[in-house]
C-alpha cells in the first residue's frame, strides 16, 4: 500500500478536492465575490496539481545553497516555476475581477448573479 498514504496521493486528493470545491462554489453561489473566491480555490487546486507533478519523494527544494546537495535529491524545478507564474496570474485576475465587480456593484447595486441578468437571450 505504498500508494495509499504517499504525498502524491495527498496532493492528488488535495488538488481534486480544491478544484471541485472551487467549481462547486462557482456553480452554486450567487454572490459574485464568492464566485471569484471559488475560482481562486479551484486555481489553488490546479497549483497543487502542478506542484505534485514535480514532486519526488524525499527530495528538497532545488537550490544549491550549500555544499553536497545532489541533483538527484532535488525536486523538479520546472513545476515550481510554473506554479509561481500561475499564482501571480491568478492573483492578477482575482484583483481585476474584484475591481470589476465593485464597479458593477456601483452600477447595479447588487452582487447577486440572479439579479445581474441585464444581458441574456
Amino acid at each position, binding site marked *: 500500500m*505504498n500508494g495509499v498514504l504517499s504525498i502524491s496521493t495527498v496532493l492528488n486528493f488535495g488538488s481534486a478536492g480544491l478544484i471541485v470545491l472551487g467549481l462547486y462554489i462557482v456553480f452554486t453561489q450567487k454572490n459574485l465575490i464568492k464566485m471569484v473566491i471559488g475560482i481562486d480555490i479551484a486555481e489553488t487546486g490546479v497549483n497543487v496539481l502542478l506542484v505534485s507533478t514535480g514532486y*519526488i519523494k524525499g527530495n528538497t527544494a532545488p537550490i544549491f545553497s550549500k555544499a553536497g546537495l545532489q541533483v538527484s535529491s532535488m525536486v523538479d524545478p520546472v513545476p515550481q516555476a510554473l506554479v509561481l507564474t500561475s499564482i501571480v496570474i491568478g492573483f492578477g485576475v482575482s484583483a481585476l475581477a474584484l475591481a470589476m465587480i465593485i464597479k458593477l456593484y456601483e452600477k447595479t447595486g447588487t452582487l447577486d448573479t440572479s439579479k445581474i441578468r441585464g444581458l441574456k437571450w
Partner: protein
Amino acid sequence: MRKVISFLLLAGFVFYFATLTGGLLIPDSSADRSSVGLDILSRSADETGSANAVTSVVVLYRGFDTLGEVTVLFLAALGISVFMKSTGEKRKKVLDQSFILKTGSRLLFPLMFLFGMYIIAHGHLSPGGGFPGGVIIATGFFVILLTSESVNFNKTLMSVLEGLAGLSFIGLGVVGLLGPGNSFLQNFLPLGTFNTVFSAGIIPLIYAVVGIKVGAELSSVVYAMKESK
C-alpha cells in the same frame, strides 16, 4: 436543484478524473523519471550560475513566461485603474486615522522596502526573487496608503516606473538578441562566482526589474482602489 446538478456533475468530474488518470491513490514517483526539469537541474548551475534552480528556470529557461507574467500584472493594474477611475467626488466618509497603524507603518515601511530589495537581490540564491520582493515593497506602499490621507503618491511616477521596468525587461532581452547569442533574453553578462550576490549574469538584473515592476504595479493597484469611492 442547481446544487444537486452541480454536485452530480462534479462527482462525474472527479470520477473520470480519477479513473482516467489512473486513480488518485498513487505512489510517489522516484527520481528516475525523466523530464525536462531534471535535465535542467543537472545543467542549470553551470549554464546560468544561479544557485537557485527555480530562479534559473523562472528567469532564464522560462524567462519568457516571466515576462508574460509581469505583463499580466501590468494588465491587471491597468484594468483596475480603468475600472477604479476616480469619480471626481471626494470620498464621503473619511476614516479617522489609527495612530498605531499610521506610526507603525511609517516605522516599518523603510525596513520593508529594504527587505524587499534584499529579497530581490538574493533571488538567484534563495526562493525569493522579483515577485516576493516586489510584493513586499508594494505591501509597504499599501500600508502607507491605507494609513495616511494625504500621502503624496505620485501617480505619474508609478506609471513611469511600470513602463520603465517593463521596457528594461524587454531591453535586457533585446541586448541578448543583438549580442552574439542572438537570442532574446540571452545572458550577456559573466556568470560570476557561484552562490554569491554578484553571480548568475542578468538574472539579478531581471529580478530587479521585475521587482520594481511588481512593486509599482501593485502600488498603483492599491492607489486606484483607494481613489475610487
